[in-house]
């Protein structure tokens, strides 16, 4: 049990816990905060996997920008009280049971895969560095990159269409 492993298990537990808290928190604001915390934990995993660029992006874009946007919206709507009406109990139960079954089936299906002993290299490896990623992004992946700009344009137009007051 080296430090990486300890960190992995710790982070994993924390991730799962905070993810669960996202689901069970009654107050939407808490949910958002727990989600941000989850993202931090996942970012921690990225660090472990030496994916530095993604770590940064995850913190800035996800935890920083996106989640703050969520928070704004929730605040804007004044949803910060735990007023959300509950679903029918049996519906919730059905949801949990269905999800549990899915997890069970997934795990059962994947528990004996051929690559299960393969190692995801931690701490080392330089593919997660900004330099390498940048090179790849603007050489091999320039077309998808440009395409994603179209996506953004369309999202922008869309947001304007939806948001503009008539």
């Amino acid at each position: 049990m080296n430090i990486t492993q300890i960190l992995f298990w710790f982070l994993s537990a924390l991730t799962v816990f905070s993810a669960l808290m996202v689901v069970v928190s009654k107050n939407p604001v808490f949910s958002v905060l727990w989600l941000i915390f989850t993202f931090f934990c996942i970012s921690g995993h990225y660090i472990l996997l030496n994916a530095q660029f993604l770590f940064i992006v995850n913190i800035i874009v996800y935890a920083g920008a996106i989640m703050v946007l969520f928070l704004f919206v929730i605040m804007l709507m004044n949803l910060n009280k735990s007023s959300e009406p509950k679903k029918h109990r049996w519906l919730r139960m059905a949801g949990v049971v269905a999800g549990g079954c899915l997890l069970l089936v997934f795990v059962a299906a994947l528990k004996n895969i051929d690559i299960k002993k393969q190692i995801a290299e931690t701490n080392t490896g330089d593919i997660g560095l900004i330099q390498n990623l940048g090179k790849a992004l603007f050489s091999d992946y320039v077309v998808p990159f440009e395409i994603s700009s179209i996506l953004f344009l369309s999202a922008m137009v869309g947001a304007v269409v939806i948001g503009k007051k008539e």
Partner: protein
Amino acid sequence: MNALLLTAVLGVVMMFSSFLLSKKSIIRNLAILGLASVLVVNILEMSGIIFFKIDTKGMIFFDRFALLFNTIVFASTLIYFLLSSRDMEKVGTNYGEYFALIFFILCGITLSSSFRSLLILFLGIEIISIPLYILTGSDKKNLKSNEASLKYFLLGAFSTGLMLMGIALIYGSTGTFSTVDATTSGSPTSALFIAGMLLLMFSMAFKVSAAPFHFWTPDVYDGAPTVFTSFMATIVKVAAFIAFIRLFSDEFGNIQPRWQLLIALITAVTLFIGNITAVFQQSVKRMLAYSSISQAGFMMMAIYAMNADAKEGLLLYSAAYCLATIGIFAVLIKLKDYSFEGFNAFSKQQPLLAATTTIFLLSLAGIPLTAGFLSKFYMLRAAAMTGKYLWLVIFAVLMAVVSIYYYFRVIQAMYFKEGNGQTVEASIGFKWSLILLAAIIIILGIFPNLLIYWLYF
């Protein structure tokens, strides 16, 4: 590649046009003109004239199949513009933006018909989806439109999650996103790969609204402004099918026995739910939504069969289905009352519209002499060709019989029921476009080779 770039550019152009140009007719004509040019450059590309040669590192590849499909899509969209673009004005104020979004969607369609990488597939599907969420909700004051938009968005995002999980699992198994290398570089029979395939299957089934992932379809098609329902029920849906068949032929083609049964089941369930549920609908618009599910069931047979016939057939089916449905929607948009009763005595009020609508409905029902028949025929032939699961073929034709029931209800209402008929304003251009559309459907119904020929030459 010509079309891909041009559609993106046109999207931007339309985006600007909305505040640079004040007259809506100019915007509309610009869009029609632009689309026509897209169609032209796409046809040019089919004849080997490529304006832009971009190295996509094997992520995008325009083969004849993709190009021909794109041609069908652009042509259908052109007819859609001709018939219905005027009616977009009624939806909201953002006339130019609607065109921009549609062009972006077309760009996404071009991608999803020609991807060789899961990444492009993902981006293509998203470029299609995101503008659609907007278009669905574009009637902002209408609660139904809002609701449809939100439902579509939530369910769509959920299915995106499934698709990404699938892609991730496949990546884990093969180490590549390329669809053509996948089977050579990994172990395609590993549980990881199969699980990924299943998830991709689910999300694609969602996009094509195949049961049991179809639930969004009736609500969204019903809630969306009719003019956009027309677009998404036709062009977008067949685009998803092309993506589906491309994905499953490239990536999973050689493990067909692994998924054939599942697809067959999905097909059967889709046919069943689509047709049976459509029977009891009271609104033609919602009936058409269910009908699109049942038509999806037929198109699923191409995925199930996955042979040369299936691809030819899917092209023909796309054309037949798009054209007929666009036609019906074009008429439906003009009406105020979407219920079946609303069509009563329509033939007295508008004989031409009624006659063409009848042809469209007959085509959807798969009556010979219309393109709908031959396309169904191709599907059945492809499915029978596999030699497996013959029950599927028989079940499919029985469901086709059920489909007669609801399509003919409209015809009955138009011709045989008493009533006053809704007054409809239809311009001469609109009428001629309808006639043109009906003519194409009949010509394709007699000489499908006019279309399929392009696949090979």
